[in-house]
């Protein structure tokens, strides 16, 4: 059974014709366009598929519930909701760049200025500690120390030891008895 010296389309070729008739070899395509038998087989195949689709369509129940789109709440950061995300992203990037530059200027570009400031601070701390130590040694001002007769600032410990020897605690010093 041949038409135009070609065998009729077999099942696989019919399936291919349904999917994409252009994918058939040109000779087979030419045969299909001229052979009423093959055209009829193709139509029958298509009808089967269409019927399957219409049966499926008919045997699906109708939805009982309507689709309702709830009111979409605005996000907490409502100020930014109107801006596209790319704008927000570029603003965040710009902020990061500014922060990075500021950090570099403060901690890297001006280290000398920062070191000088630290040295001054250490000096001030030293002066303050000297004043505290002075007050620990001599709590009263000089005028009061003169009145109270406790102005021993000129007398150091060695001189005092020479004038008034220390009493040894281990009892090795000669007793008056």
């Amino acid at each position, binding site marked *: 059974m041949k038409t135009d010296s070609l065998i009729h389309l077999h099942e696989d070729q019919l399936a291919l014709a349904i999917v994409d008739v252009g994918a058939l070899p040109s000779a087979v395509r030419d045969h299909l366009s001229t052979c009423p038998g093959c055209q009829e087989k193709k139509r029958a195949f298509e009808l089967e598929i269409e019927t399957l689709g219409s049966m499926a369509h008919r045997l699906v*129940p109708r939805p009982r519930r309507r689709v309702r*789109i709830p009111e979409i709440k605005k996000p907490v950061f409502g100020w930014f909701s109107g801006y596209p995300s790319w704008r927000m992203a570029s603003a965040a990037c710009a902020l990061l760049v500014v922060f990075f530059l500021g950090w570099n200027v403060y901690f890297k570009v001006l280290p000398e200025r920062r070191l000088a400031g630290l040295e001054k601070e250490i000096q001030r701390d030293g002066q303050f500690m000297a004043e505290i130590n002075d007050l620990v040694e001599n709590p009263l001002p000089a005028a009061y120390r003169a009145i109270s007769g406790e102005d021993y600032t000129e007398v150091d410990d060695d001189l005092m030891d020479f004038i008034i020897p220390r009493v040894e605690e281990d009892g090795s010093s000669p007793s008056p008895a």
Partner: protein
Amino acid sequence: MELNREQARAADEDPGTDSQNTVFVRRAVQGDRAAFDRLISIFHEPIFRMVYVRTRSRVDAEDLTQDIFIQAFKSIRRLREVDRFRSWLYSIAVNRVRDFHRKKRLRSFFMISSGEEIPGTDSKVAFDDPEPLKEVMRKDFWGHLEGFFGKLSRLEKEVFTMRFLDQLTLREIAESLGKGESTIKTHLYRALKKFRKEKGILKLVGGEIH
């Protein structure tokens, strides 16, 4: 992006064709809530059908359809090519159904482990039509189709369903699934060859034709 007034009026009067849908899509992208509602009314049943075919449960299909439209509403402003709305919407639907099946599998695994009964797997729950004859036909049809789908790979089944049950074009299927058109054709071709060998379903379809 100024809309042609006559075009918009025509779309209001007779929605349904692709060019008219495009008008609504364009309006919806610009934030027109009423236009999105029109799109819901146009696509509600096709999307519900698409989900029902894959879940075989009316309640689940209704829930998922609702989710799909909410997701579409939230992200429609990001849609760049308005003429691709249909494939974009179906891609949301395909992903949502896939998530549903993943969660269901996970749930069923834990329920089987703990000995609990799996809800939604009872056919009485899935097929709840009050007409008994139609229910028998429905069970018979979906049973045969399920048997046929069992012989297909995941992608063959998806492509066959989208082409012949959801009536999508090859381009729309390719866009929805994120595959090349030649891949879609290959899988459709394989599915069709298997379909021709499926005697049960062919008999059912043949009975319907004659």
